[in-house]
Every structure is written in C-alpha cells, then in structure tokens.
C-alpha cells in the first residue's frame, strides 16, 4: 500500500522562474512527514510536484527525479493521470464538488477508475471512507445532501474521505487545517495519526505545534531572499528538529527568532 518516495536533484520552475532548487529527500512509507518554512519558500510548489499537479499550471515544469518505489514519476512513459490516482491530495481550502451530494463526493474518484460499481459496494465504500475520515456519524443521515452544506471542518474531512476512497499509496496535504477551528483541527490531526498506519503522508503546515504533534519527520525549507529559489535546509526526525536542529536557520525559525 504505502510507498517510499525518493527525490533527487529536483528543480521546480514557473516558466523561467526557478521557485525551488536542488531538493534531495527521502520520504519513508507509513510515516508522516511535515514541511515547514516561511511563506513563499516553495512548500506547496514542492508538494504539488509529488503528484504532478504542478504541471497543470501553464508554463510550470520540473527537472530531476521523483521516484516512488523506484519508478520515476516523471519518466517519459508515465501518465500524470495515473500518478494522481495513486497519490491523493487534500487542499488548503476544502473543495468538495458543490453540485454533488456527500455520497457522490466520496465516490467521485472511485467512479473515475471504475464506472460500474454496484449500489451495495458503493454504499459500503462511502461508509468505510467516511468512517476513515471520522465523519460518518455526523453525516450518515444526510448522505444525499450537497457537500457544500457542511461546516468547513466537515468539508475538509469529506475531502479526506474522497481522497482515501480511492486507496492511494500516498496522501499529500497542503495546510489542511489552516481554515479550521481548533476542534476540527484536532479531529484532523487524530485522523492523520490513524491514517499513517496505511498511507505515506506528507503535510505542509505553518503550525509548529501541529508539525511536532503529527509528524515523524520534519523538513525545513527556507529561501535566501525574494526572487531566490527556496531550498531544503534540513530534514530529520521531528524530535531532533525541534530539540537539536543542525542548522542555525532552523533553530531561529522554530524558536520564532526568524528574520
């Protein structure tokens, strides 16, 4: 199920602008890796290269390799659509499809892979995924209501349910809690802790405590100045990063002495 990711010599561009430079990183399977760093250092940009969502932006491209269990995602014969079916993504702002019911939202990705699922299977899958996202009890009586009628936190968990319904190998989350209240945030953090037994999870967060709470490993990104590309400063076990980082920049950022 879960797979490891090896990133080598990765440079990421928006047209001519190099947004992220020379990333080397390994992401372990069945673990949570957190990306932290100041705004604009390229965390989202890098995250989006892990499922080839980066290239949907006109002019955006990458150099280097991102290998999942040894297979380069950017190989010539790799279909980006296939990559995205294996690497799920949860966005900063909850984005359930407003024209679909809650149940249809959960099944949206499943239906892409498999047009004909029996009604019973579909119901099972909806229940399983919503339970997996800790949302089942709140919505089980209104599965045919529009997904946009839920609260922000519920919508975000619906998006997680939608992402895990297709049983991806990897789950990417870009600041999944930044639009949520503390209670919903805790609900999602608990969820992440449960999901990591099955998935490889990468999460971008601006919240140090959150990174410390949910992640096994933490990567710190930084940029030297505006117009400069963002770089990976260091990646290590979360405990090490937060207690004894190797780099001074990391320590400054974590302790709030940044800039």
């Amino acid at each position, binding site marked *: 199920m879960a797979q490891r990711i090896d990133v080598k010599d990765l440079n990421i561009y928006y047209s001519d602008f190099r947004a992220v430079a020379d990333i080397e990183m390994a992401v372990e399977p069945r673990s949570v890796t957190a990306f932290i760093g100041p705004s604009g250092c390229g965390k989202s940009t890098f995250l989006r290269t892990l499922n080839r969502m980066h290239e*949907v932006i006109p002019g955006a491209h990458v150099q280097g390799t991102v290998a999942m269990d040894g297979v380069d995602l950017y190989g010539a014969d790799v279909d980006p659509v296939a990559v995205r079916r294996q690497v799920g993504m949860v*966005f900063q702002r909850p984005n359930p499809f407003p024209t679909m019911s809650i149940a249809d939202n959960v099944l949206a990705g499943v239906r892409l892979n498999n047009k004909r699922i029996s009604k019973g299977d579909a119901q099972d899958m909806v229940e399983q995924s919503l339970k997996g996202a800790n949302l089942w009890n709140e919505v089980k009586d209104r599965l045919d209501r529009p997904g946009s009628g839920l609260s922000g936190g519920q919508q975000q968990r619906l998006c997680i349910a939608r992402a895990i319904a297709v049983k991806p190998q990897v789950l990417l989350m870009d600041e999944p809690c930044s639009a949520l209240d503390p209670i919903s945030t805790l609900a999602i953090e608990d969820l992440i802790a449960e999901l990591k037994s099955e998935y490889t999870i990468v999460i971008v967060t601006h919240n140090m405590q959150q990174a410390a709470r949910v992640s096994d490993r933490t990567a710190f990104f930084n940029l030297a100045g505006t117009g400069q590309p963002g770089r990976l400063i260091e990646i290590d076990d979360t405990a090490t990063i937060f207690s004894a980082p190797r780099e001074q920049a990391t320590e400054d950022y974590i302790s709030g002495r940044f800039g």
Partner: protein
Amino acid sequence: MSTTQSPPAPGPAATSSLEPAGPRRRRRGARSSDRGASRAFRWLATGAGALILILLVAVAVFLVIKAWPAISMPSDELVEKVGLLRNSSSLLDYVGPLIFGTVLAATLALIFAVPVAIGIALFTSHYAPRRLASTLGYVIDLLAAVPSVVYGLWGALVLSPIVQPVWAWLNENVGWFPLFAGKVSPTARVLLTVAIVLAVMILPIITAVSREVFLQTPRLHEEAALALGATRWEMIRMAVLPFGRSGVISAAMLGLGRALGETMAVLMILSPGFLYSFHILEAGQQQSIAANIAAQFPEADPLGVSTLIATGLALFAITLVVNVAARAIVARRKDFSGAN
C-alpha cells in the same frame, strides 16, 4: 451570473478596527459620503430594475389594447371581416398553427445549436491554446454581428441548393421518421433549412455566454478533480459542466428567445403554410408568428392589424413561459448549484 462565487473582498470594515483613534473623525466623514454614494447607487439599481418591469408591462398593455378589437369580436364576425382568417374558423384556429410552427422551428434550432455551442465554448475555455482560443472567440462574436437579412439571403441563395440533395436523401431513406416524411421540396425552402439558419444565428450568443461561464469555474474545483486522477474531459464533466449548467441554460434561453422572434431569415427562406405539420422537409407546411406578421402587415386593414397583433401577443406569452420554465429548471437544484 448569480451562481459565481467570488472570495469576499476585505472591506473597509476589516481594516478600520486596526486604525489608531486619531483620524477617527475624518474617517467618519468619509464613511458617510460612502454611504451616500451607496444609497444613490442603490436607488439607481432599483430604478433600472423597475424600469425594465415597467417596460415589460407597457409592452404587454400595448399588445393587449391593440389586439383587443380582434380578441373581443365574436369569431364568426371576425372571420367574415378579416381576409387573413379566410381559411380559419376563429382567431385561435388561426394562431394555433403559427404557434406550432414558431415553436417547432425554434426548438429544432436550439437542438442543433446547443451541443455545438457547448463544444466550441469548452474548446475555447479548456482545450485550445490561448492564441487560437481568442481568435476563435473573435470569429464567433463576428457571427453575432451579421444582420439577419444577410443570414436570410445566405439561407435562401446558398444554403438551400446545397442541402436540397441531402434533404432528398433523408426523405428517401429515413422517410419512416415522422419529421422526414412527406413530399420533399425541390427548393429546400423548408423548416429544416430555416432551423439550421436559426441555429447559426443563435450560436454566437449561446457560445459566448457559455464560454464565460465555463471560464468562471473555480480553479479549486478543477484541481480537486485533477488531483483525483481525472483526465481533462473527466475534469470537465465533474467540475466545469455542473458548475456551468445554469449559465448554459440561461444562454440557451437567450438563444431560444432570439430564434422564436426571428423574422427576416424565416420570411426569406420559408415557403409558408398553416398546418400542424411535422413534415420539415415539405414546402408550404408551417409559418412562424414573426414572419407571418412581417409578411401580412403591409396589406392588412385595421382589424387585420389587430389580428396580427393578437398573434404577436401569443409570441410574447410563449417567450415569457419559456423564460419562467428555464428559471424553474435552474432553481430546482439550487442547493447543488454551488451558490451557497
């Protein structure tokens, strides 16, 4: 479009609480003039809205008053006095086939135009490279600027001879299908040709509105679909089309309105008739209300004019009904429209 979402702009209220107390008074002054401007704007907007309603009512009243002599007169008397009704038993009997012909032509035009318009709109909004898309959009907009007389000429002189063999073939080979039955016209001055010309005429407006709506699809929803592993077409089906649905319906209604009321093109192409006939390949079967008015008006006496205006009233009513129906369709799945 009422369905488009835009992130709430941070208004002055969001920043004013952070301001120091000093410039408070000046600020309040600015506020009240803001409020004055906003009130003026509200009146302006309300006025414009009211004006439209007043115009609508005025048109309806005008039609009813002018049509009243014909409507209120007993049928036998009317039939006797008005030459137009020489083959009809009453006013209703006269206007019925006209309504039928009008609706049939417009419906066919809509059936031809909508899929093509959606296709072009999607191509320009989501497939074509930017340069090509804007050229194509420009050409489509040009089509809207062609006067309907020109379409009429084109339909009668160019299109009819070209499609005639096709219509003959359809009649011969698919003649069991009710629409293609009957005696095929040797000149192709028939309703199907009219419907095609009407489709071309309403294509630009439907395309332009649909394209704008498709371009408004929130990036967030498109990316949600792509991140699930949707191909571009699947993304369009999951995110773009549902989002644009009500806008496309509105666009189609705009087009339908134009097709229902189109006069010149029908007048110049169609060989008219007054039957409830589905034979769209046969000459002398149907006629549209607007074309009939234009054709008969010059020679009508006052009561004849009143009769024609009564048919115009029917056209007005059809257009209203069509629009109300479209609203109802749009509203039916409001919860799921993404407007909340």
